[in-house]
């Protein structure tokens, strides 16, 4: 009897042990599953934190641009959160074969697992802005204004309503907006603008024209003093220093501007025509107090519209040390400028804006300057502005267009 009881106890114990072990296994598996998920999260966090630390280093030290030394990354593992990470920097080409982009690869190690974050940087150019203004003294964005694309105001962004205006909405900003010193209402009442992609204050990006770089890229064909009349003709340019019709020479862009830069120093550059290649026309002022102005004599357009033609490689930069002036044309009131305009010390102005026949200024590209000027009298004369952002300028720019001396992130791969 005692033996049977013993057997029974042992048998029951075995059954209980077995079922206990099975249930314990399920619990352990669940725990392991949760831990594996947690470990993966930790590994990813180390990689992302490492990439952020390295990106911060890149933004502060700007390796490889503005005369700064190159940085190879952190090749010795950096310990973090029980794991470690390394960072490698590589200079790479874009899809058009142009060098200048930087690929940063952060590899995290945690336990026996690795995880990579690949960040692609591009030197940032002012052409990335649909609108850049150094100052808005005395002017403001009114409800009928809209900016589609990135916008930066290197001072205070002013907004307001014209006298007697009863608009229900304020100005519209479709892209990301940054300002140095915030926003302010200049009228009372004033409708707050809509910032569809947000607004960030406290960001300073001063204008920075590297004249010596543009001069160097213009090379032996840098013109000096006087006037330079340039007519864009697809992949060629006709140019003269004595007028539109006399002494005109026509050359392929690859000949006259092999690096994509056609420039004049201490003079005035007149430009018009149609373009099918990347080109930057610049009017510089290396010394002295005159010159460095651009006059857009007539429409400046691309041969095909990049908004509808994905193969369009035409890209125009109009760079001036001083003002860029939209001239008057007898044959038509509307004016079209396709390209990104940059004025270091002045802005884009419309000649006779308060008396010229009423038309429209269509811009496909961007508009950067120290000051914003009125372009019409608001009712009967001048050229109200219609700026459409050229989306290609988010990642590309006309040749040697002035840079912000910083990097921007193009892509972040995890």
């Amino acid at each position, binding site marked *: 009897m005692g033996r049977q009881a013993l057997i029974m106890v042992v048998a029951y114990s075995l059954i209980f042990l077995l079922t206990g072990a099975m249930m314990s296994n399920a619990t352990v598996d669940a725990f392991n599953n949760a831990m594996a998920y947690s470990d993966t999260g930790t590994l990813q966090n180390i990689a992302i934190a490492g990439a952020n630390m390295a990106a911060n280093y890149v933004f502060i030290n700007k390796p490889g641009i503005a005369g700064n030394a190159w940085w190879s990354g952190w090749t010795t593992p950096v310990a973090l959160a029980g794991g470690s990470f390394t960072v490698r920097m590589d200079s790479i080409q874009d899809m058009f074969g142009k060098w200048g982009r930087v690929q940063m690869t952060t590899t995290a190690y945690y336990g026996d697992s690795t995880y990579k974050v690949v960040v692609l940087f591009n030197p940032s150019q002012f052409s*990335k802005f649909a609108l850049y203004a150094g100052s808005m003294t005395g002017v403001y964005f009114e409800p009928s204004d809209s900016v589609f694309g990135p916008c930066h105001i290197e001072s205070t962004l002013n907004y307001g309503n014209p006298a007697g205006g009863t608009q229900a909405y304020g100005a519209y900003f479709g892209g990301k907006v940054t300002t140095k010193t915030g926003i302010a209402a200049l009228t009372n009442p004033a409708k707050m603008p809509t*910032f569809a992609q947000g607004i960030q204050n406290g960001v300073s990006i001063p204008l920075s024209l590297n004249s010596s770089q543009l001069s160097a890229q213009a090379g032996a064909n840098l013109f000096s003093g006087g006037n330079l009349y340039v007519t864009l003709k697809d992949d060629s340019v006709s140019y003269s220093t004595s007028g539109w019709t006399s002494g005109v020479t026509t050359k392929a862009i690859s000949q006259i501007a092999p690096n994509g830069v056609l420039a004049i120093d201490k003079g005035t550059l007149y430009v018009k025509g149609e373009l099918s290649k990347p080109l930057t026309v610049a009017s510089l002022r290396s010394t002295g107090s005159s010159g460095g102005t651009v006059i857009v004599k007539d429409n400046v357009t691309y041969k095909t519209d990049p908004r509808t033609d994905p193969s369009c490689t035409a890209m125009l930069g109009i760079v001036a040390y001083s003002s860029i002036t939209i001239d008057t044309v007898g044959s038509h009131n509307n004016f079209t400028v396709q390209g990104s305009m940059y004025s270091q010390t002045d802005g884009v102005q419309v000649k006779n804006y308060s008396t010229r026949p009423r038309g429209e200024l269509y811009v496909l590209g961007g508009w950067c300057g120290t000051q914003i000027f009125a372009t019409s009298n608001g009712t009967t004369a001048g050229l109200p502005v219609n700026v459409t952002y050229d989306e290609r*300028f988010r990642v590309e720019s006309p040749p040697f267009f002035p840079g912000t001396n910083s990097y921007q992130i193009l892509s972040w791969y*995890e």
Partner: protein
Amino acid sequence: MQVVIDLIASTVIFGWLFLIGLTTKTANQEDFQSNQGELLCQENLVEVTKLLEYDFRKIGYCKEPDKLPNPTLAILMADSSKIKFLTDLDLTGSGPDGNLDSLYYYLGPPGTMSNNPNTCILYRVVNNLPAYGSNLGVTSFKLTYYDQFNNVIATPVPQSKLQNIFSIQISISVQNVVASALQETAPINQQFQTAFYMQRRLATVNYLNR
């Protein structure tokens, strides 16, 4: 007489012990099934979550950024339980190829693939190819969209407001695809283990980087 009493008593005691054993076995089996169900449910949730996190991190990503200069155009359609966006997927296992792909997530109707009437298939459609999905027990897949001021954007998000999306809240609940209660008591007593996941995240750094 004493022998008969012993026999009766021992039979009763044996029967009692036998019943205890049976009950114990049944209870253990149900507990075991329940535990396994919870484990399965949790594993399924982790897998779904990993996949979603992997894909949502890449909204607006392209190895060749020139092909998607404005990443805020990457979200093509946004609704409360479906979203379609552009990204650059690793389709061959050798990394992204630099070509844009479309990715479409949507939740199928409930109760078509398991004996749990609540579960649905979460479909993942790449480049408008036929929809494929496996039943991982997803019972709800809810997406909530916020603008930059943290206001909820009503769904379905109209085309004109897709670029206003600033962050997305993802909520998923997963149930075990089979019940843990025994057949004898089903369907009244069916127990479907449930796990829930919710995350509020920026719609990836790519989406807002330019």
